[in-house]
C-alpha cells in the first residue's frame, strides 16, 4: 500500500471517520442539531476530497478496490444523495419523539458501504460493501421504535437481503471454483480464454450472481419485497433505499459485467432481456392498481430499473453513458418525490394515501408543483431531467438496434403515464370545494431543511431537463475509456 493509495481512499476514510466522530459525539451529548451538522460536515468533506483524489485516478488500491473516475463519479452521487437524505431525515424526525441521532451514524455507514461497492473490483470488496450497506439498512428501515410497519419492513428486508447475499456468495464460490480468481478483470480474461460462459457450473454461478443483483435492484421476478419495504420504512429512508442502495448496485453491475465481459454471451444477454421486459411490464401494470403513493413509487421504481437495463443491454460507450445519466436523473427525481412525501408526513403517519394529495395544488402550491415536476420527470415529459434521460435510453437502444426492448419500453411507459397522471389529477382536483376544509389532516409546516432540499432538487431537475450539456460533458469525460 503506497501513499497514493491512501490518498485515493480519502473519501472512504473520511466517511468512516465521520461515522465514528458522530457516534462519539452522540455519546457525549445527545443533540439532534449538533449531530446533523457533524454529519453534514463529514459528508461535505468527503465530497470535497473527491476533487483532491481525482488527479490520482485511476489508482488500484490493493486488489480489492479501484478508485477510477467512474468510481469517483458514483461516490459523488452517493454522497450528494446521502446529503439530501440527511436533511430530509432532520425535517422528518424532529417531528417524532424517538431518539433520532443514531440514524445519522447508520446513514454514514450505509453511504460508506455504497462507496465501497462502486469502487470494488473484486468479489471480496463487493461482498464487504454490500454487507456494510445492508446491515445499516436493516436498522434504518426499522427506525421507528413506536410504529409497527417500519419494524415489519426492517425484518422483511433482513430476511430478503440475507437470502440474496447467500445467493451471491454461492455464485461467487462457483465462479471461483472454476476460474480460481475473484478479480473482475481477471474473471473476464479467463472466461474469454475459455471461450464463453460454457461450463454449466460457471453458468450457474453467473445466474446466482444475477439473482443477487436482481434482489437488490428489485427486478422482476425478485421484486416482491419492494412495495412492502417502500411502504413500511420511514419516507426519507425509503428515498435512500430507492436511490443510493440501488444506484450503487447498478454501478457495480455495470462494472462487473463489463469487466467480466460476460454479458455479451448469449445466455446471459437473453436472461437480462427477459428480466428487463418483465420488470418494465410488471412494474408499470402493478403500479396502476395502487392507491398508496409509496407503493406506487415502489412499482414505478421496478419499471425504471427495467428501463435502465435497456441501456445496459444496448452496451457500448453510449449505453454506459446512458445508464449513468439515467441514474443521475433518477436520483434527483426520486429524492424530490420522496422529499415531498417526507415533508408532508406527520407524527402519526407518512403521507402515503392518494387521498392525502387531493387538492394539494390549492393548499400547498409549491409542494404540489415540486411533486408534479418529479412525477412528470418519472414519466419522461419535457422540461424535466427524466425526459432527457429517457431520450438517452431510447437513443442508446436505437443505436444498438435492440428494438424489442425499445418498443416494450415505449408501450409500457405509456401505461405508466396513467398512474403518474392519477396522482397529478388528485393534486389538482377539488377546485370547486373551497379550501376552507382541507381534505386531509396532514398540514405540517415546511421545515427549512426540507424546503432547501426540495428547492435545490427542483432546480437541478429542471436545469438538467432544459440544458443537459454540462452533465453530459461531465459523464462523458468521466467514463471515457474507463469501462
Amino acid at each position, binding site marked *: 500500500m503506497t501513499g497514493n493509495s491512501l490518498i485515493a481512499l480519502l473519501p472512504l476514510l473520511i466517511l468512516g471517520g465521520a461515522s465514528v466522530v458522530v457516534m462519539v459525539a452522540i455519546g457525549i451529548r445527545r443533540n439532534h442539531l449538533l449531530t446533523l451538522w457533524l454529519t453534514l460536515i463529514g459528508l461535505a468533506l468527503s465530497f470535497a476530497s473527491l476533487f483532491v483524489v481525482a488527479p490520482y485516478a485511476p489508482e488500484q488500491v490493493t486488489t480489492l478496490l479501484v478508485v477510477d473516475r467512474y468510481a469517483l463519479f458514483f461516490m459523488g452521487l452517493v454522497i450528494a444523495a446521502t446529503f439530501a437524505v440527511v436533511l430530509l431525515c432532520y425535517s422528518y424526525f424532529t417531528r417524532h419523539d424517538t431518539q433520532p441521532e443514531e440514524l445519522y451514524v447508520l446513514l454514514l455507514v450505509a453511504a460508506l458501504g455504497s462507496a465501497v461497492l462502486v469502487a470494488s473490483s473484486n468479489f471480496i470488496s463487493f461482498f464487504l460493501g454490500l454487507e456494510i450497506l445492508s446491515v445499516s439498512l436493516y436498522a434504518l428501515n426499522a427506525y421507528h421504535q413506536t410504529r409497527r410497519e417500519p419494524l415489519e419492513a426492517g425484518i422483511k428486508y433482513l430476511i430478503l437481503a440475507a437470502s440474496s447475499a447467500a445467493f451471491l456468495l454461492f455464485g461467487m464460490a462457483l465462479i471461483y471454483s472454476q476460474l480460481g480468481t475473484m478479480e473482475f478483470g481477471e474473471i473476464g480474461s479467463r472466461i474469454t480464454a475459455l471461450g464463453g460462459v460454457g461450463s454449466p457450473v460457471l453458468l450457474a454461478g453467473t445466474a446466482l450472481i444475477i439473482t443477487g443483483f436482481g434482489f437488490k435492484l428489485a427486478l422482476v421476478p425478485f421484486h416482491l419485497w419492494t412495495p412492502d419495504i417502500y411502504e413500511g420504512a420511514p419516507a426519507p429512508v425509503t428515498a435512500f433505499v430507492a436511490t443510493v442502495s440501488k444506484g450503487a448496485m447498478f454501478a457495480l453491475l455495470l462494472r462487473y459485467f463489463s469487466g467480466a465481459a460476460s454479458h455479451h454471451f448469449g445466455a446471459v444477454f437473453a436472461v437480462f432481456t427477459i428480466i428487463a421486459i418483465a420488470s418494465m411490464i410488471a412494474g408499470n401494470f402493478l403500479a396502476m392498481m395502487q392507491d398508496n403513493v409509496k407503493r406506487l413509487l415502489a412499482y414505478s421504481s421496478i419499471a425504471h430499473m427495467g428501463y435502465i437495463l435497456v441501456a445496459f443491454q444496448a452496451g457500448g460507450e453510449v449505453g454506459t453513458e446512458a445508464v449513468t445519466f439515467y441514474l443521475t436523473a433518477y436520483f434527483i427525481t426520486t429524492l424530490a418525490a420522496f422529499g415531498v412525501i417526507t415533508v408532508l408526513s406527520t407524527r402519526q403517519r407518512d403521507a402515503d394515501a392518494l387521498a392525502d394529495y387531493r387538492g394539494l395544488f390549492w393548499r400547498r402550491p409549491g409542494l404540489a408543483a415540486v411533486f408534479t415536476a418529479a412525477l412528470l420527470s418519472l414519466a419522461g415529459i419535457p422540461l424535466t431531467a427524466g425526459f432527457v434521460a429517457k431520450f438517452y435510453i431510447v437513443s442508446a437502444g436505437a443505436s444498438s438496434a435492440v428494438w424489442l426492448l425499445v418498443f416494450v419500453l*415505449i408501450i409500457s411507459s405509456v401505461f405508466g403515464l396513467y398512474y403518474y397522471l392519477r396522482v397529478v389529477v388528485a393534486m389538482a382536483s377539488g377546485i370547486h370545494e373551497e379550501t376552507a376544509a382541507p381534505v386531509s389532516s396532514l398540514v405540517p409546516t415546511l421545515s427549512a431543511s426540507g424546503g432547501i432540499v426540495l428547492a435545490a432538487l427542483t432546480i437541478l431537475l429542471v436545469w438538467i431537463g432544459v440544458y443537459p450539456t454540462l452533465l453530459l460533458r461531465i459523464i462523458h469525460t468521466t467514463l471515457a475509456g474507463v469501462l
Partner: protein
Amino acid sequence: MILIWLIAILLVAGALAWLTGRWSKRAPRWISLVAVSADFVIALVLWSRFGAHVSLASHGPWMEQVNWSWVPQWGIHFHLAMDGLSLLLLLLSFFLGIISVLASWREIQDKVGFFHLNLMWILAGIAGVFLAVDLFLFYFAWELMLVPMFFLIAIWGHERRVYAAIKFFIFTQLSGLLMLVAILALYFIHHAQTGQYSFEYGDLLGTRLPVHTALLIMLGFFVAFAVKLPMFPFHPWLPDAHTEAPTAGSIILAGLLLKTGAYGLLRFVIPLFPGAAHRFAPIALVLAIVGIIYGAVLAFGQTDLKRLVAYTSVSHLGFVLLGIFTFNSWALDGALMGMIAHGISTGALFMICGQLQERTHTREVGRLGGLWSTAPRMGGVAMFFAMGSMGLPGLGDFVGEFLVLVGTYKAHMIGLTVAAAIGILLSTLYALRFIQSGFHGPNVNQWSVPDLVPREVVQVAPMIAILLWLGLYPQPIFNTFKPTREAIEKAIAPAPSPALSARVVSRLQLPRPPGVVARR
C-alpha cells in the same frame, strides 16, 4: 431573435399570470390578453414585411431564424425558423389565442392565475411546434404542449374531465413516442451515412433511405400526426377531449392542436420521405374519405352540441388529409385553406356552445331549441358559422374544400372526389341540425337568455370578418404559402434517384399496397 420573443412573451406572461392570480382575478386575464395580442401584432408585422413578396428566394428557405447550439454532444440545436406555412399558422394561433382568452373571461372563475399559466404555455408550445426545425426541439415542443392542455381539461373541464384528459394524454403520448423512435432511427441512419450527428431538418432532408426503412420511419411520424389530426381509426380521444374541455380548451384543441398534425405532415412526412409518402398515399387517401363520411354521420347523430361540433372536426380534417396526400398544388392550397378556415369556424362554433352553456347550463339538444327569439344576435352568428362549416360559397371553408376536390379530380381520382363530395352533402345535415336544435323550433323550455354582450360581439366580429375575407379574397394566403408549397411539390415530384429506383425495380415483385392507387 424575434422568434424567441414570440415564445418568451407567452412563457413570461404565463408565469406572471400565475403570480398575480393570487391577488386578483382580473390581472391574469389582462396580462394574457396583452401578451397574446403583442404576439399577434408581431406576427402581423412579420407578415407585412415578408408576406407581400411572392418570391422569397433572396431570404433562402426561411424568412427569419434563430440558431443556437443547445446540446452539442448530440448535435442538437435550438433552431427556430419561419417560412410562409409557419407564419400563417402562427397568425392563426395568436388570433385564436386572443379569442380563447376572451372566451374564458367570465367562464373561468376558479384558479384564474393557474388557468392562464396553462393557456399561455399551450400557446407557447404550439408556437414552438410551428417554428422548430431541429427535430429534437420539435419533439420537445410537441410533448410540452400536452401537459398544460392536460391540466386545462382535467381541472376546468366538464363532468367527465379526468377520463377525457387522461385519454387525450395517453393517445398523444404513445404516438409521440413512436415518432421519437422514428426520429432517432433517422438520426442514426443519417450518422451512418455522413458521420455527423444532427437533428437538423435541413441535414436530414438529404438522407437516403432504403424503401422499406423509409416506409417504417415514415409511419412512425405519420402515426403521431394522424392521432393529432385526427385520422379515422386514431380519433377516439377527440370527441371526449373536445367535449369535456372548457371553451378555451376546445377552441385551442380544434383550432390549433389538430393543425399541428396537418403541419407535421406537410413539414416533415412529405419532404423527408417523399417516396414512402407516395407508396403510402392510397391508404391515407382512403382513410381520409372514411374520416370525412364517418365524422359527418356521427356528428349528425350526436345529442350533445359540443360533441356534434367535435365530430365535424373529424370530417373537416379528413378533407385536409385528402388534400395533403393528393400532392398537387390545388389540393395543397385547399388543405392549407381548410386548416385555417376550420380553425376559425369551428373555434367559433365551440365558442357559441360555451356561451350557450354559460347561459342555459346545458348542451343537450333535447333541452335547447327556440333560442332565436330570445337571443337573435347569437342565433345569427351561430347560423353564419354553421354555414361556414357546411361549406357555403363565399366563406373560407368552401374555398378549402372546393380546391381539395379540384385537386383530387385533377389527380384522376374521380371515385375519391365523388365520395368526398358526398361528405360535403352530409355536412349540410349536421350544420342544419346544429341550428335547428339550438335556435329554431318552439321554445319549449321557455328559455329567456341574455343576447350577446359587447365583449362577445368583439370576439365574434373579427372571426366573421376573417372568414368572409378568406372566402372572398384568399389570394394573400396562397401567396404566402406558395414558396413552401412549391418546395413540397418539388420534394414529391422528381422521379426517385437512380440508386433508389434500382432498388424499387429489384423489389417490383412485391405486392402493391391495397386500396386505390394514385395515378399521376
